[in-house]
């Protein structure tokens, strides 16, 4: 009985030790912040994005941050006259804000993409779409991450 209790206590001790290590690792990185994320997006897409036209689909809770499935679609007829030129995806709680940039042409047919991202911790994903006329649209989505995918 005593042995059992000790074992449980040790597990708890190990977990808090791990948490402490995780804290140190986190402190060592220069983490991206919402500001850095905005700067990264602003360096690529000039102007102020308005909400809408962009749909960001991702899980509410990701148990494993190593590969979180994300689908982003942008409303557009994708014709020579009107199409989505680029789509920028950023995350505000990773070591660096950038995730992926997509560049489309009218040949893309439909501005919808899927990929898997790494998320180090609970954070917000932001997608900004740049239309061929220069207008910008955005969407964001908060993902709770149980186990981070930083690989520290």
């Amino acid at each position, binding site marked *: 009985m005593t042995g059992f209790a000790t074992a449980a206590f040790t597990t708890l001790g190990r977990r808090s030790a791990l948490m402490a290590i995780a804290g140190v690792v986190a402190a060592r990185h220069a983490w991206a912040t919402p500001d850095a994320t905005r700067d990264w997006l602003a360096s690529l897409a000039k102007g102020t994005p308005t909400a809408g036209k962009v749909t960001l689909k991702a899980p509410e809770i990701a148990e494993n941050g190593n590969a979180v499935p994300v689908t982003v679609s942008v409303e557009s007829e994708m014709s020579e006259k009107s199409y989505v030129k680029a789509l920028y995806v950023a995350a505000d709680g990773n070591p660096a804000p950038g*995730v*992926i940039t*997509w*560049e489309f042409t009218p*040949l*893309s*047919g439909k501005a919808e993409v899927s990929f898997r991202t790494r998320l180090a911790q609970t954070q917000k994903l932001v997608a900004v779409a740049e239309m061929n006329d220069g207008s910008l649209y955005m969407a964001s989505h908060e993902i709770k991450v149980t186990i981070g995918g930083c690989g*520290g």
Partner: protein
Amino acid sequence: MSDDIKPRLRVPATAKKGEVVEVKTLITHPMENGQRKDADGKLVPRLIVNALKVTYNDRPVLNAKLEPAVAANPYLSFFVKVEESGTLKFTWTDDQSQSWTAESKIDVS
């Protein structure tokens, strides 16, 4: 390690004229993000696939620029509008300018 890197595609073999078809791609690659440490505590240098270029009959369809925040074995899927039969060509490039290509033919009726 480089020998293990293989692109995989899922592209429909046939389509109707003007159809928008879904394309799924995956390349087996560790996507070293430059944050990870090896057993000796040394930082493993960054080595990721940073770009995918897609053309249809040599006309650009789509480009993707990948950052270290894309998961290992990057899976990317998207769409292509096909007006005539042709060849979809994919080129992945990594940080060391090594590249891998794959092709898939679509028969349009």
